[in-house]
């Protein structure tokens, strides 16, 4: 019996000692990280005839990062948003990345498109200085945000100035023919999980940082496809060409005691002219076409008094943004909109911000009507990155 107890004791404690001896707690070569961001808030909107106010359900966007080695990585972002009494979910991106050499990285999967910089770099709530995107982005926007395909990207150090590039091929957009939503005939839909024709979209962005302090970046993006309609449909050969110009300037200027941040982007979309069918209330059908050209622009200026001696003032940020959007004349979604937005932010930390913003938007036309609408909005948002 004694021998049995001795053996059992040796096995139990010996095992633990063995485990302690060899558990060095060294970091593993592969690593999984959960990051992301979330935001919530309150909005009050007044469009003259109609006023509404609502607390916003939290939006939650977890980002999954898996680093397999110093060269191979997987990234994915999910999005959960409470909207119109429903929980909307989405896969913002999910792609594999491999660093080929110091100047080249290949990505494959669903990735954010480098069409300008807003959607790829600046749209997350804890980065965007205002509670919403400028005109021309989002559901009715003209700038593509993501695509499924393959991309090559990288950067070169030119001995002070820097050059970054990205070229890609994706499934491309699908033109809405109006059969399901007549009021959206001619709009390009970029969220296509399966290609509906043989034509792929090709695009890229070139960015130049001309000064050694990386304060300024100028970028040019292009996106093109020779076919946007379904295969064997009359819209199969309707091509599209989009381009964007972007500008960024961020610098701490001692003379004004803080950081100035200027961002702007111009987007232009040109789609081949196509013929669509309008069904009147009496059932008669009429063919129509229009010059399918749209454009949008935004310019934003923000200032943080980071050199102030007062801790409260140091964490403040003042923001102003102008944006406009023009949709084609003659389309059911013809629109001219202009928006001015002003904001006061308080940074609780480098990744958590409370935003107070007033916005006024003038819209002529659009989905909701033909007249002129003025909408004023007051927003209080709280965003956090993690």
């Amino acid at each position, binding site marked *: 019996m004694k021998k049995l107890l001795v053996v059992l004791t040796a096995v139990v404690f010996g095992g633990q000692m063995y485990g302690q001896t060899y558990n060095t707690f060294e970091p593993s070569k592969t690593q999984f990280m959960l990051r992301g961001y979330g935001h919530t808030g309150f909005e009050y909107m007044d469009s003259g005839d109609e006023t509404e106010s609502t607390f916003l359900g939290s939006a939650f966007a977890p980002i999954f990062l898996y680093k397999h080695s110093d060269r191979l990585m997987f990234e994915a972002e999910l999005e959960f948003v409470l909207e119109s009494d429903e929980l909307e979910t989405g896969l913002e991106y999910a792609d594999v990345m491999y660093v080929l050499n110091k100047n080249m990285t290949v990505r494959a999967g669903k990735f954010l498109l480098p069409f300008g910089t807003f959607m*790829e770099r600046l749209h997350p709530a804890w980065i965007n200085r205002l509670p919403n995107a400028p005109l021309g982005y989002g559901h009715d926007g003209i700038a593509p945000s993501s695509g499924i395909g393959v991309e090559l990207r990288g*950067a070169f*150090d030119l001995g002070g100035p*820097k050059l970054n590039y990205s070229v890609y091929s994706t499934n491309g957009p699908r033109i809405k023919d109006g059969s399901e939503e007549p009021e959206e005939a001619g709009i390009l839909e970029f969220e296509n999980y399966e290609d509906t024709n043989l034509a792929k979209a090709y695009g890229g962005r070139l960015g130049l940082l001309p000064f050694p*302090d990386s304060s300024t970046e100028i970028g040019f993006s292009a996106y093109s496809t020779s076919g946007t309609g379904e295969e064997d449909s009359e819209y199969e050969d309707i091509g599209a060409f989009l381009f964007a110009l972007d500008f960024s300037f961020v610098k701490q200027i001692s003379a004004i005691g803080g950081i100035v941040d200027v961002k702007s982007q111009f987007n232009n979309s040109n789609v081949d002219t196509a013929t669509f069918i309008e069904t009147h209330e009496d059932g008669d059908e009429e063919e129509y076409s229009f010059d399918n050209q749209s454009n949008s622009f935004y310019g934003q200026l923000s200032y943080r008094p980071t050199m102030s001696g007062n801790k409260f003032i140091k964490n403040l940020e003042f923001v102003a943004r102008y944006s406009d959007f023009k949709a084609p004349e003659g389309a059911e979604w013809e629109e001219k909109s202009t928006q001015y937005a002003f904001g006061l932010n308080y940074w609780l930390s480098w990744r958590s911000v409370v935003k107070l913003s007033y916005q006024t938007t003038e819209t002529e036309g659009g989905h909701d009507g033909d007249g002129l609408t003025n909408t004023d909005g007051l927003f209080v948002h709280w965003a956090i990155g993690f």
Partner: protein
Amino acid sequence: MKIMNKIVIGVILVTTIGATVVSCSSTKKGYSDIPDSETVVAEEGFKLEKSGAQLWGETCNRCHIAPSPADYNDTDWETISLHMRIRANLTEHESKKIEEFLKSAN
């Protein structure tokens, strides 16, 4: 639009081939002179290179407020650095120097 499509494809091909040739070509000289020690010391003395802290301030602030080094551990910073290098299209030199700074200051 077909012509624009061909131009875009052409630019993509030229960019891809150009980037491949430049990034894969060796920068080493076939034959190099052996520098004397005084020249090497003088050259290093005049070499002005930005610190990781300086690059951290300049580069991260281009999109968001520069992160606090204390918020993540060394292994986390390795993952984040690789992710940001690709996402923000940083040069290898920038991301390595920033990563070294963040790991040394956390």
